[in-house]
């Protein structure tokens, strides 16, 4: 299903993707798929926060995260909101390669993380044994 070279992705994304790839039962696929989506947001968020703190930029982004953590905690919507704010800050540093890569990944992933994404082509079909194939 994944069809990608996971060994090049950060562990926090590659590992849940691999678990999803190995899943057979539809319930397991749904559960692991949901976990992957959440972990993607968290991974991007942590990378963005790390960049902000290491560069001393985006104080409002870090403050937004701290306020959420001190309050009800970080749900998926909070992570995506924070990512969107961090993306603006990183866009102001076009010569920073780390900022550029994190921002590109965040900007590309945000519509998918927020659930507003709809694939342009046909959905993958689910083969026998409950495994999705593309």
């Amino acid at each position, binding site marked *: 299903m994944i069809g990608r070279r996971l060994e090049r992705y950060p562990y926090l994304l590659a590992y849940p993707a691999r678990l999803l790839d190995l899943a057979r039962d539809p319930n397991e696929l749904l559960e692991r*798929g949901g976990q992957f989506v959440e972990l993607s947001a968290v991974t991007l968020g942590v*990378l963005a926060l790390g960049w902000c703190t290491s560069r001393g930029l985006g104080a409002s982004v870090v403050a937004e995260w701290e306020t959420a953590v001190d309050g009800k905690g970080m749900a998926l919507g909070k992570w995506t909101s924070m990512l969107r704010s961090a993306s603006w800050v990183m866009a102001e540093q076009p010569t920073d390669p780390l900022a550029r890569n994190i921002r590109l990944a965040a900007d590309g992933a945000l519509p998918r993380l927020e659930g507003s994404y709809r*694939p342009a082509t046909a*959905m993958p079909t689910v083969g026998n044994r409950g495994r999705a194939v593309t």
Partner: protein
Amino acid sequence: MTKAVAEIAARVVAILEAVEPLQRVNVGVIRSCEPASLGSHIVDVDVATGYAELFRRSGYRRAACRKSAE
């Protein structure tokens, strides 16, 4: 159920495609960082790339981990 599985599968593949730039980001945990010679340090890093277990790598690196070592 089949439709839900297909939707989550499409979403996961789309996210992986979107975060491809992260393949150029080396994620890891610096376990130790000691000055070695002028302008370089020897670092001990848990590399966090790929889906296998984390593995440790040691090597020389030029003055890149000062902040992490503090």
